[in-house]
């Protein structure tokens, strides 16, 4: 306890400000945050920033190498790759955030109910999760995506299905841990309703690991979405999703590698910044600091 006291005085710091403070010190995490926010802003303001429309074809200028006119060159139909990548960010980010939001809400709900009420409900839910997790995640996404067909919404659903068990299990584990702690007994003893106990006392504790998992989850979703588009599911051309662009450019890779290089780099940048942020969040939220 003595070590926590700031030398400035007896200041009570909330968890939020402590976390921000620690996060700010982590240069990689800050860099990651800046990058991903920048990408988000660029994606949102695509119509304002992109020099060309993403569908604009220029058949006299196909396959041109990167130049002053076309920073990343043009593709097989003369479309400006730079603009397409900027627009493509919209899809990747939408799908990434959407898939995680969906999986997280469903998973958290399942996990809390299973962990809090236990008994038969828990047993049934756990068996369901077992079955879901028996199919490797990527495979499950492929199967669901094949069923639903291409499109952003379907892609989001396909991605979230395979990640729901992760959030559910984590939530359940936290619930089981906390359920038996004394402050829950204390809350019960003053006649607090179940829902109140769950929301006010237990969820805030599970918040930290869930946030970390969600951040890394968005990164993973972007990767898988690109993969799905690449093999012909997910989002299809002419939509400028990065994976779809890779699929298009693949046939020309020998002569025009820039078609494959830039979309890939865009994916790496987005995923890397999210991973850096996620790592930083995990270190910042960890009560057992590095020291």
């Amino acid at each position, binding site marked *: 306890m003595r070590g926590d006291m700031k030398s400035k005085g007896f200041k009570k710091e909330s968890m939020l400000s402590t976390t921000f403070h620690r996060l700010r010190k982590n240069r990689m995490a800050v860099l990651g945050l800046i990058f991903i926010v920048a990408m988000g802003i660029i994606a949102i303001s695509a119509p304002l920033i992109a020099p060309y429309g993403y569908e604009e074809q220029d058949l006299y200028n196909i396959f041109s190498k990167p130049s002053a006119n076309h920073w990343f060159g043009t593709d097989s139909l003369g479309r400006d790759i730079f603009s397409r990548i900027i627009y493509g960010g919209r899809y990747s980010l939408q799908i990434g955030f959407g898939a995680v939001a969906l999986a997280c809400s469903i998973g958290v709900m399942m996990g809390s109910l299973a962990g809090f009420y236990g008994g038969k409900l828990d047993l049934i839910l756990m*068996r369901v999760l*077992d079955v879901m997790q*028996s199919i*490797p995640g990527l*495979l499950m996404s492929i199967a669901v995506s094949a069923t639903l067909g291409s499109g952003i919404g379907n892609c989001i659903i396909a991605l979230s299905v395979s990640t729901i068990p992760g959030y559910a299990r984590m939530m359940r584990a936290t619930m089981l841990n906390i359920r038996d702690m004394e402050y829950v007994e204390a809350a019960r003893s003053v006649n607090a309703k179940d829902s109140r106990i769950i929301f006010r006392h237990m969820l805030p504790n599970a918040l930290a690991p869930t946030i970390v998992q969600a951040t890394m989850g968005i990164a993973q979703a972007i990767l898988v979405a*690109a993969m799905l588009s690449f093999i012909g599911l997910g989002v299809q051309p002419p939509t400028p999703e990065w*994976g779809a662009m890779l699929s298009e450019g693949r046939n020309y890779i020998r002569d025009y590698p820039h078609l*494959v290089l830039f979309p890939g780099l865009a994916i790496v940048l987005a995923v890397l910044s999210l991973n850096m942020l996620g790592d930083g969040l995990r270190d910042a939220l960890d009560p057992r600091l590095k020291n």
Partner: protein
Amino acid sequence: MIRYIVKRILLMIPVILGVTWLIFTIMYFTPGDPARMLLGSDATEEEIVAKQEALGLNDGYVVRFVSYVKQVFVDFDLGNSYVNNRNVGTEIAQRFPYTFRVAAISVVIAVLLGMPLGIMAAVNQYTWKDNFSMLLALMGISMPGFWVGLLLSLLFALTLGWLPASGVGGIAYYILPCLSIGVNGCASIARQTRSGMLEVIRQDYVVTARAKGQVERKVIYGHALRNALIPIITQIGTMFGIQLSGAMVAETIFSIPGIGTYMVSGIKSRDYPVVQGSVLYVAIAFSLIMLLVDLVYAFVDPRIRAQYQKKSKRKGGA
């Protein structure tokens, strides 16, 4: 010990049935009519309906499910492809070894390279060795496997011509596909090993070992690593599942005749038995691998082993 194995195998059965049901249900709702696709746009309505009857597409959900289960588990028949009427099971059995080999080799690469990297990073925490290797690992998990495959293929096959770009044959054909999905796996294992080791290294029993005067090498490998290894074993099992799926995607890049290419073409032509059979096969293979991992886990962790050996010890020992 035998009891534990039997118990785990018995538990697997309802899970596999559940998986079959899940896959079947997912496929059931796939839009698109195989009969129509097979017969083409010239077919008449009567021909289509007749084909649908022949394929059993008009029966109810439960009927179709039950007959599928019977077909798969009793007759061990995964059905015939709608497209070329060849038996799905035989085809998969021929193709699976390729996929499995790519996945297995990349898991081995991932473990052999990733684990030492993670250990070194943990033992040298805060130094440049740690920061650099973790930076590499971070990049490794941020790169899409198929993109790495494309780039490696561009560099080593198309430009330099050192390695073949497609097909199967000797070891040379496996290098690029395994590397491209191995990078991700290696990075992932390095990170997990590092965090596992860091947790263990701080434990009191590691300090106890040093306080006995034990050599540092034995403290790290004998005391710390053996404890850290236990959760990592489970993670290796999960990774196998990831690598299997990854291998399937790598196949499309390197034209490897494995389950991946089979399944992807099956998806495009709405060939239900092919897709169903492929997913089911891989899921069951994955379950068996996880079972194996669980057994190894029980073997390695004496707390679990002791539970099942206590009875025999009590009779034998004092």
